[in-house]
């Protein structure tokens, strides 16, 4: 075990400390906070899967994608849904090809074994052949198996695990604890370099204790203003500083309101893109009103916000002014 452990640590060597992880992720446009970097660091060193929970759209899936990008290893994504089973998650035999193979074999059987032999001779001759019917050539690997087979390591993303059935969750336990999968006809396939496993959950249902126990747990919440500004800046390079401050302040304010669905980071980024596209240099009430549908996805949320919109926009506009003033300067507005 310690061998593979070292292999893992050595393999993802670019991520040798939490600081290095933060930097590496930032280089591919993912702004991680201290918690995230630390948990990824632990995951690599303790060889443990990470279970990420948090509201939709805060970058749970994106973390896995970014990890893959900054390590330059493939990301195997397994999207969970009700009814997902082994044949879609692990492997499947290519029945069509297998059938063709038997046809071909039948036609050429005489050439291979020769004619006019007794049955016992035939069987002993046949048993010397390699069993091709169940072999790697006819195996269609699915995400879990593919992740195990990557020699350079990989990132395995099991997305929205809470949507799968409980049987599948139990099946996953085996894969996650030993980093190996068993194909009955072929034997056990073990990962040379254990993949970095990321599981995400939106809390549709409570996950089993057994799964939680095996994972490191990471909760990603909505970011604070500082981090959100960095994220938007990284994702939408064209956004001007003033606008950036205002729009982030507005979104942060919006999250404090009593809403059905609070806007997440992905919505902030979309909104920033929209505003840049419309050549807005600062927020004003009319443009916010026009583009509010990018942020809020429920009719009732939009109508409940729209009454106090003017005030919220002014507050957000002030936020950017304040930060330009030297600290301690009295706010005269």
């Amino acid at each position: 075990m310690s061998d593979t452990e070292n292999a893992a640590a050595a393999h993802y060597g670019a991520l040798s400390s939490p600081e290095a992880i933060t930097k590496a992720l930032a280089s591919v446009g993912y702004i991680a906070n201290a918690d995230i970097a630390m948990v990824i660091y632990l995951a690599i060193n303790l060889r443990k899967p990470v279970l990420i929970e948090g509201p939709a759209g805060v970058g749970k899936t994106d973390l896995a994608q970014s990890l893959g990008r900054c390590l330059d290893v493939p990301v195997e994504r397994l999207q969970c849904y009700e009814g997902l089973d082994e044949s879609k998650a692990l492997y499947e035999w290519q029945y069509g090809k297998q059938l063709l193979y038997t046809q071909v074999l039948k036609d050429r059987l005489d050439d291979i074994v020769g004619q006019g032999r007794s049955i016992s001779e035939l069987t002993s001759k046949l048993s010397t052949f390699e069993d091709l019917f169940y072999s790697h050539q006819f195996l269609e690997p699915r995400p879990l198996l593919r992740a195990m087979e990557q020699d350079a390591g990989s990132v395995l993303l099991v997305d929205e695990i809470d949507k799968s059935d409980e049987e599948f969750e139990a099946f996953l336990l085996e894969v996650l604890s030993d980093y190996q999968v068993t194909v009955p006809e072929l034997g056990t396939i073990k990962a040379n370099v254990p993949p970095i496993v990321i599981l995400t959950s939106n809390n549709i249902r409570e996950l089993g204790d057994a799964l939680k126990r095996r994972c490191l747990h990471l909760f990603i919440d909505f970011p604070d203003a500082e981090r959100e500004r960095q994220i938007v800046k990284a994702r939408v390079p064209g956004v001007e500083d003033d606008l950036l401050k205002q729009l982030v302040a507005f979104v942060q304010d919006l999250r404090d309101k009593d809403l059905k669905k609070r806007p997440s980071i992905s919505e902030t980024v979309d909104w920033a893109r929209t505003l840049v596209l419309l050549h807005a240099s600062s927020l004003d009430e009319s443009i916010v009103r026009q583009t509010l549908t990018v942020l809020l996805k429920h009719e009732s949320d939009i109508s409940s916000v729209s009454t106090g919109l003017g005030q919220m926009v002014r507050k957000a506009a002030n936020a950017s002014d304040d930060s330009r003033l030297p600290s301690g300067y009295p706010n005269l507005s």
Partner: protein
Amino acid sequence: MSAERTLTNFVRALRSADVRVSTGETLDAVQVVKLIGYSDKSVLKTSLRAVLAKSNREKQAYDRLFDLYFSQGQSKAADSETSTKDDNESGSEDGYDGFLDLATSGDDAAIDAALARAGQEVGLEDIRFSTQVGYYSQKMLKAMGVEEMETTLLERLQDHSPEGDADAEVMIDARKNMTTRALEYARTQFDIYGEGATQQFREDFLSKKRINEMDVSDLNRMKPLVEKLARRLATKHSRRRRRKNRGQIDLRRTLRANAGRDGVPFDVHWRQKKKDRPKIILICDVSNSVARYVRFLLLFLYCMQDVVKDLHTFAFSARLKDVGEILDTSLDGFEQAMEKVMHEAGWGSTDYGQALSDLFVDHWSLIDRKTTLIILGDARSNHGDPRLDLFEEATARAKRTVWLNPESRALWGSGDSEMLRYFPHCSVVSGLSTLKDLERAVDDVLTHYR
């Protein structure tokens, strides 16, 4: 204290605060500490959190305990590095000779360390109740050798000399001083190890206490308890089980699955029954006698919103009011919402017949064969027409009808109570006097949707 001991004690503390930590997780924590070290507290905090606390609620408990546990352990952590040396020569640790010398030294770090050692010796981590603080602090003082000093103190006093008196004075001060510190120490330890246990004891007691006998302080404590029970039940019922309906082939899926085998059905898929999602219509009598129960039932069901998404709430005393909208707030706003419900629906004399006919006129279409009808009330209708005809029709339309009656069974049917006449139409009628009853009733309702 060794590094492992520090950690296992912390795990104990977490467990007593209802954070479930398995042995495997403890081992993970040891690995983490090996990797990270004790030096940086904030780093240690975030990394241990990922290993030990696995839900939002657990993370809160974790944060509170981590701060408590590791703040008093500044010297303790230092201890852990030189642990073997200290443990061997207990008695004259840190170069102080006996109790008096230590107490008068003014060396806070050494005193803290000595207290920690004494605490460990007397098994302070077993503390469960706040009343034990005094007992344990005395035991600690004893372990630190206060008795030897007391013997000397007596001897000194018997000298009847001015020097003897002065010495005695010093010793008495020292003892006083150390007693205070030991008490303080025991109290923080109680906060760490005992509070969870006390809480559990209290909750156990509360959940069995009759709701109408509770006083205000009990009621305040009930809210987190109700939330906890509801959470537990929600977890239980959010588990999805597929029910296979053997006997009917799902032709479409079978063909698709076997397309690779020339359509020969090796791999047969069966039709699966869809599980109904719980749909609950709740009708609450909010007259004075029942109001308290209504509060808890509503709180309970609203904590379970994840599981019970389709919930319609009506309240009445004279006329029926749809209060679903008022209650559609976050849990923090629940109390105010409840006030509003009482204000809007809680006037007039109770009339079950009127409520039923209001339901018939405005909301009859809500009741279908997936619906469970829950009625919470004492069925005391002030001698009005109980409208049994409507009730019978409603129960026939609904999947099940559950009546929760806070009155004791003996009183059903007495005076203006119509309970016995409603009784035959209900699927279940159960008494409701404690929180446990409430939990059982809701559990029963949800179980019928599996």
